[in-house]
């Protein structure tokens, strides 16, 4: 994992609720709807703006699901890219303060 670290924070312009293992998210900007499965929900819940993606993947995905760090990291990058495209998730190269993360 030689790439630069990434930090994720949830956008304020969303509505979200977790039902069982899944999370329903709707953008208030364009009403796009996402339903995250249990892996996506694990990443989403850890997106606090301060925990690096690699650590989220290791702690929340690889420890819970049978997958290697490399596979999980590649999948996670694709997943967060899709959410970021719709303004659901913000990706930064540096950690953000708790205030900024909201």
């Amino acid at each position, binding site marked *: 994992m030689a790439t630069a670290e990434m930090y994720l924070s949830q956008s304020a312009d*969303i*509505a979200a*609720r977790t039902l*069982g293992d899944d999370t*329903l998210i*709707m953008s*208030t900007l364009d009403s796009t709807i996402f*339903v995250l499965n249990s892996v996506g929900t694990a990443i989403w819940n850890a997106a606090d703006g301060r925990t690096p993606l690699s650590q989220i993947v290791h702690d929340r995905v690889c420890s819970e699901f049978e997958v290697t760090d490399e596979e999980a990291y590649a999948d996670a990058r694709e997943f967060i890219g899709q959410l970021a495209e719709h303004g659901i998730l913000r990706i930064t190269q540096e950690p953000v303060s708790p205030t900024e993360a909201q």
Partner: protein
Amino acid sequence: MNLLDEMNEKATRQGVPLSTHMDITWRCNERCVHCYLDHDGKGEMTTEEIKDVIRQLADVGTFFLTISGGEPLLRRDCFEILEYARSLRFNVKLKTNAVMIGPKEAVRLRKLGIEQVQISVYSHRPEVHDAITKLPGSLRRTTDAIKHLKANNIKVSITNVLMQFNQRDALAVKHMAQELGVNFTIDPTITPMLNGDRSITKLGITLDELHDVMRTEEFVGDVAEFCAPVATVGSDVLDGYSCSAGHTLAYISPFGDVYPCVQFPMPCGSVRKQSFREIWYDSPAFSELRSVHVRDLHTCSQCSHTAYCSRCPGLAYMEGDMRGPSAADCQKSYARTGIPSAAMSRAGKTIPHVHIGLVQISGLQ
């Protein structure tokens, strides 16, 4: 099946109140001739009580939260309530007459991320709209508000409630909605007063008028398809429920009383006496409602309209039997297809000229 349908199905299986309609006041600055509420504000929940209920709703999984009234903006804490709901990540819709929404309020609503503002417009003519609301200047103020909301990219939906006074203006209101760039829905629903008084339903359009509405392409799209009867009723329909009320939908009054829906005044409990969770999961009234499948409906399960009828169990309840037919929905199916419902046939088709009153046509844009 789209994602929302999937989540609704999941919520039904898990018993989650995915949608809640919350009236934060019944007070109003308009006095619409067809309104089903009294406007007494005595005993309304306080700001903190309402916030506590909203927090409870987040805990049990509510995602869609409609804040309504009365006129919700009459409460000075309305924005505080909306802000709190958004901080808990609800998808928030606001139902309002909008006369108190100016440029500043529109900006605040945009910043809060309100999903949609739903507004009733009764006519494109001030003399008709204002006569229905009994508030001079209300059409102009409402229309101005819609422009402010649109300028802030807030989604707006206009509902045109059809009555005898205004039903001829429906097409013009639709055109007005198109010019304003907002959604449009017609609603031939005159809800009886929640105290049981049905006198205002006489304001509703007649069966003949509803027949004409249902054959107007601008309202229903493909008329032949919309009015075509569906003969087959599968077990999926019979094993299902009439609607989401009490399954994934709840209504909470300004006084903390909980019901399955705003049009289903079956008392299920009070959040001033119990938690919402206790009411939702343990109320005998909710349990009874959830036990009723379409196949348990003594008349409707045998009706040829069952596959597509929008039977409202709340209307049936108000007519005296939650498991029985709703006359208004029978009339709607009759107006749509020309085929009498099972209930109408049993009654010898004696009710074709009753005012429609509570009839809803869903999906009309």
